[in-house]
């Protein structure tokens, strides 16, 4: 564990009887980009604020750079934070903002100016030192906020959904920029977000958080291809959820049959027996579409449905079907070739998927009756 910049050990935080962070343990390796992904209210902000030192854990310990942070105030931790609304100081110039932390450390004025100017140049804002904060664009402010933290050379940089306030185009651009900045500085980043695409694109490791716990922790590819819980399967990427009971079972795959009698095959994930309530997940991207059986890949069981609507979104286009037996919605990604762009509502089509790329979990308590 000598290379771990952040180690959380059984960290617990309760608010008025409700458990915000539930006995969480994890470690973040030096120089990596770690994301905490979860819906709002999952406890990720609480966790980040505990790492920054604004709130103290009820029990457990957080160590940064190998040193326990118990009873260490935020201004004494080797951690800096990029706030959700950035929190740049409007009463100061851009240069003064970046030099603020250095001034607090007692760095002499000339040295302060030199280092903040050098940092601004590294983030591409060499000309902006004398500007007021409100003269900058959203993306430039973002870079100032990061520069203001990185100039202090923290062990850990915390980022609290910093892209949330930006418009879509800028957000896409800033994602790439953040990744490049992290690679260039080599600082360990801990990033929290509810946007799965941000987490997947940016991170080396992602912790998917739900109700104060990590559902799964691993590289983005694992979360996408090998989700370990139904929550991860439905939260990371798009998924069709099919609820039913086990009708056939072998050592690695199962047959799931819905209440209406539709059967699909999927990989088994977790212990289950015949008749057990389960949830299956099939990604729109792994599903093939065809007007005839011959158009579908050979050897895959096929299903049929009726076109409900066509969702054109360039490369992310999809079609919504009504599955024939269950009359439930089923989403299928359209191929990039534009092959099925002429589909019409109410058209009957066939679809199939590789059972090895669909997963089946034991149903979560209280979730069995819901449909996906």
């Amino acid at each position, binding site marked *: 564990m000598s290379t771990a910049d952040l180690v959380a050990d059984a960290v617990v935080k309760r608010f008025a009887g409700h458990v915000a962070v539930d006995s969480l343990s994890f470690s973040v390796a030096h120089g990596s980009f770690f994301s905490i992904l979860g819906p709002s209210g999952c406890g990720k902000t609480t966790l980040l604020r505990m790492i920054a030192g604004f709130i103290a854990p009820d029990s457990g310990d957080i160590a940064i750079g190998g040193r326990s942070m118990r009873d260490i105030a935020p201004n004494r931790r080797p951690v800096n934070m990029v706030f959700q609304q950035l929190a740049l100081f409007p009463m100061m110039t851009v240069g003064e903002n970046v030099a603020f*932390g250095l001034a607090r450390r007692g760095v002499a004025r000339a040295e302060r100016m030199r280092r903040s100017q050098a940092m601004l140049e590294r983030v591409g804002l060499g000309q902006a030192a004398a500007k007021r904060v409100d003269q900058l664009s959203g993306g430039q402010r973002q870079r100032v906020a990061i520069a203001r933290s990185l100039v202090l050379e923290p062990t850990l940089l915390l980022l609290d959904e910093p892209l949330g306030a930006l418009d879509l185009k800028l957000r896409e651009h800033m994602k790439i920029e953040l990744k490049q900045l992290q690679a260039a500085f080599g600082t360990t980043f801990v990033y929290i977000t509810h946007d799965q695409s941000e987490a997947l694109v940016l991170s080396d490791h992602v912790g998917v958080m739900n109700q104060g716990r990590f559902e799964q922790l691993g590289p983005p590819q694992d979360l996408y291809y090998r989700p370990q819980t139904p929550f991860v399967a439905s939260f990371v990427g798009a998924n069709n959820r099919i609820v039913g009971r086990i009708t056939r079972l072998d050592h690695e795959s199962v047959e799931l049959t819905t209440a209406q009698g539709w059967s699909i095959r999927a990989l088994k994930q977790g212990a289950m027996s015949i008749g057990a309530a389960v949830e299956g997940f099939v990604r729109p991207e792994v599903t093939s579409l065809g007007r005839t059986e011959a158009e579908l890949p050979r050897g895959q069981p096929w299903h049929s449905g009726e076109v409900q609507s066509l969702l054109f979104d360039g490369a992310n286009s999809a079609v919504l079907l009504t599955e024939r037996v269950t009359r439930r919605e089923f989403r299928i990604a359209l191929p990039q070739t534009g092959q099925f762009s002429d589909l019409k509502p109410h058209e009957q089509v066939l679809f199939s998927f590789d059972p090895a790329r669909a997963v089946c979990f034991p149903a979560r308590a209280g979730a069995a009756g819901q449909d996906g």
Partner: protein
Amino acid sequence: MASAPTQVAAGQARWHGRFLVILLLAPAVLWLGALIVLPHVDLAILSFRERVGPRQYVASLAEYKTFFTEPLYWHVFVRTAVMSVVATFLTLLLAFPMAWIIAKIAHGRARSTLFILCLIPFWVSETVRTLGWMILLRESGVLPSLLVKLGVTSVPVELLYHDATIMVGLIYASLLFMVIPLISSLESLDNALIEAAYDLGANGPAVLRTIVIPHAAPGITAGCIVVFMLTLGSYLTPTLLGGKNSQWFTEQIYTQFITRFNWEQGAAFGFLLLALSTALVMIGLKLTGQRFGEAMRRA
């Protein structure tokens, strides 16, 4: 000519609109004109003349000259200014933590309760409030007898008629006028800025100096201007709590007008006080780099 009636109607509407504006402005204009501008013009004329015989006056600067040649007036004038500056500063020091608690720490009910507690003393008139202080502080009053009972003093001491007493009365009377602009300027301070400053290594005093005070500066300026003006021009508090020793400049003006019946001198003193307060406010703004308009918007 179908448009003729609509033109007439439009003209009428415009006239109605203008009439309404005049009507709404009338009280303010009358107030300013009759009660502020006219008396001041009259006082200005009075201050620039000298009585040379019964009902005989000549234009002169004699009244202003008296002020500069008579050390008593000059002394009272400077004393009033210094005491007012000190009172304003002490009010700021006392009001800032109060405003901070109300704006940043208290929530919901506690917050409105605290605010009402600040407001309650002002439901009573200034006279009654000042007389209340006299009951507490005079030799036979509550506090001196309490001090005797507790064994702090062997005989009751007179707590009235000291400079400190005047100061207490002045601060008490002006606290609210400092607290309100401070609350509004502290409320608008984003807590994330304070957290960000801590996160970047600042300690409490550094956050106060670099983030809180620069942000609250317009509110501080507004509060200081209002309190300074109120203190400089107050009459009742220094007179009742300071007695003969108070030597407040407004008392000199009162004496000239009422006791001496020397309206010319009183008018000149009035204008000197106006010039003094304006000059000190201007110097204060210049020193802190604040602008009057900005501060008044916050107030």
